[in-house]
């Protein structure tokens, strides 16, 4: 059956010609190795003549940058950041167009119409899907041309945006790690030191419980927390090159089992069972003494529970050593952007030392670069990035993430155990590895 015939009839019928924009894109081929720099610049292509020369000041263009809408605290800082850029590069005009509502859904429509913003946020967990679909421009040539040094980014953040062959499809705009936040007074009352190992954590929870804290730990029953403990136990979700699931390895299953037991032995409870929306609220309402969250807890606590005193400590160490998860978001250039050179100038400014310092010095976000000092009091969360592992895996993330979460909830309700959680997750991963 002739595809073109079909396409012609149907598009005529539809008028929604948008989706056919990409027409005969062959998988993999086009985007990855394609010509990023040369053809890109709509207005002022800086002449690829020199080979190494890339003069950002000679580039002009009108850029649209998109992300989800910044909160009330972040918005003015982002505005300041873009104003600074405007002063430094007056030839490039930037318009920030936040996406209201569900970000991936809105972006899917823009990608399908081949009209993405020039520069936009990419959540680390979605990056593999978007990279696989050739939606993001590889940055390697730009990095080489302009001599941009990526070695200053923490691996846990940068690796989230690497393609299967190691090309870089985005630079982390900031980053967050999981750490342990604890209520100082509650621990003191129970005579407990902040735990540093799994054994100490269990002992601390038991001591707190004996001291009248009904749910010493607030624990999310989701993979975005449990996996940190699986890593600490020496387990993992994938092998090194992400070609096989390892969530059913003995270490991984033992890690899941250990985390499950925190619930089963009454050391921890889920937020919903504590009548709160998330563990930050459990810390604020002093329902739990210890939670495992990231830097987003700080502004929340300052706003909502300023009187509750808490402190940060590293995630406890398990049989497999120290481990935590790295959550981050990149700035990436749309493969269909018509202003790639100018976008690169903006991207390199925002993720360079100057831009990132402006962005993070007030403490709304933590730097993803080692050479940018974050705000005071954020040391634990920032330093965790030294050994944090990226929250970024393979395309199909939401399927195995949901599989883990649903099986874990079932296990908490008494249907199945750690092995079943591992099996369900592995099954969902395998269906995406084919």
């Amino acid at each position: 059956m002739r595809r073109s015939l079909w396409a012609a009839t149907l598009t005529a019928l539809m008028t929604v010609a948008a989706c056919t924009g990409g027409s005969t894109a062959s998988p993999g081929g086009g985007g990855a190795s394609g010509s990023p720099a040369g053809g890109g610049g709509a207005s002022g292509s800086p002449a690829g003549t020199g080979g190494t020369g890339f003069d950002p000041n000679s580039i002009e263009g009108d850029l649209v940058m998109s992300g989800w809408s910044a909160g009330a605290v972040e918005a003015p800082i982002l505005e300041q950041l873009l104003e600074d850029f405007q002063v430094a590069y007056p030839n490039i005009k930037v318009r920030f167009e936040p996406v209201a509502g569900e970000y991936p859904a809105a972006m899917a429509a823009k990608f399908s119409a081949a009209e993405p913003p020039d520069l936009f946020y990419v959540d680390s967990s979605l990056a593999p899907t978007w990279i696989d679909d050739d939606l993001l421009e590889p940055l390697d040539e730009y990095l080489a041309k302009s001599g941009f040094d990526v070695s200053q980014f923490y691996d846990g953040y940068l690796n989230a945006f690497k393609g299967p062959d190691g090309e870089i499809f985005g630079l982390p705009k900031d980053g967050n790690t999981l750490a342990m936040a604890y209520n100082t007074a509650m621990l003191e009352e129970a005579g407990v030191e902040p735990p540093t190992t799994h054994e100490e954590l269990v002992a601390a929870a038991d001591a707190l419980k004996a001291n009248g804290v009904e749910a010493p730990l607030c624990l999310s029953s989701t993979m975005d927390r449990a996996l940190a403990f699986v890593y600490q136990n020496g387990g993992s979700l994938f092998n090194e090159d992400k070609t096989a699931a390892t969530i059913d390895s003995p270490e991984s299953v033992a890690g899941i089992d250990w985390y499950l037991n925190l619930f089963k032995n009454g050391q921890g409870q889920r937020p919903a069972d504590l009548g709160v929306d998330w563990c930050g609220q459990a810390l604020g309402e002093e329902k739990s003494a210890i939670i495992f969250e990231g830097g987003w807890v700080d502004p929340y606590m300052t706003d909502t529970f300023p009187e509750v005193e808490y402190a940060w400590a590293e995630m406890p160490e398990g049989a497999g050593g120290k481990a935590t998860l790295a959550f981050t978001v990149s700035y990436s250039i749309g493969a269909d952007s018509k202003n790639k050179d100018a976008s690169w100038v903006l991207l390199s400014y925002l993720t360079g030392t100057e831009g990132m310092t402006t962005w993070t010095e007030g403490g709304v976000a933590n730097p993803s670069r080692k050479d940018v000092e974050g705000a005071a009091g954020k040391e634990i969360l920032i330093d965790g990035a030294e050994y944090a592992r990226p929250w970024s895996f393979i395309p199909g993330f939401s399927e195995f993430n949901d599989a883990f979460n649903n099986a874990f909830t079932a296990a908490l309700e008494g249907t199945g155990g750690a092995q079943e959680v591992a099996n369900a997750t592995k099954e969902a991963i395998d269906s995406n590895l084919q």
Partner: protein
Amino acid sequence: MADAGRVRRPSPFGAGSERRSELIAAYALIAIPIALFLVLNIGSILYALYISFWEWTTRPREIIGIANYQEILSDRVFQRSVTNTIYYAALVVPLQMALGLFLAVVVNQKIRGQTFFRAAFYFPAIASSAAITVLFIFIMSPGGLFNEVRSLLGLNPVFQLLGFGPEHNWVGNSSTALNSIILLNAWTTSGTMMLFYLSFLQTISREVYEAAAIDGAGPWQAFWKITFPLLKPGHYFVATVSVIGALQLFDQAIIAGGSGGEPANSLTTMVLYLYREAIREFHFGYAAAVGIILFVIIFGATLVQRRLFGQAPSW
């Protein structure tokens, strides 16, 4: 489509210029909604059918025939979503219909405050389902109003017998999540169903009831022997609308269980599954195939109902 091919019949266009211009105006007026319908509804369905044979992400990749369908039908999460959706429809539709009919009969009586009751019963239908669902989750949470009230009323022993502890998380526990949403939706949609039934009730002639009264029929008999059977076209209409709505359950499911259909996939419905594949994973070809399967199921269910309730009776 318009009967353009049958112009050879002399009547419509030959019968005077006035009638002719009326007809042209009529077809012109029909043309706009029909064109929109063809493009937006039929066109979308055909287009979805087309891309369902593709590996299609945000752009077309390659034609893979029925591979999407094979993969979907063997996917366990999809199978779960189908059983969830059918279970939901099987329970919520009769509940909605019974509740709607009951309310319609009640407010159809000549009682004081009739208008107030009609408005009050219809109210949940006009409130935002998102807002209602969020409130419902609060009310049904472990420390929520529902658990507090049943404890105050001393009903906990009864619930204990049924296996529910005093702090049961109704929407957060996989054994009760879907049933809770069923009860919620039966209530929120009952107003709309009432409205439908009310309009059908008012088509039943008063004389039939008068004749029955003369023959000595009580209200109970009148309902079962007259009202219920004469409402047959009403049942067909309400059941069809309600089944279609039920098979498309999405908003309450995603608000209560997130896009993962938590807890333990108990709230994964077919549309939620479709949504996740399309929006989270950009598997548009695959998601289109899910949509086509859903279309076939809904279409089949409607045909079955036509069989059950038959044609409109001729009275």
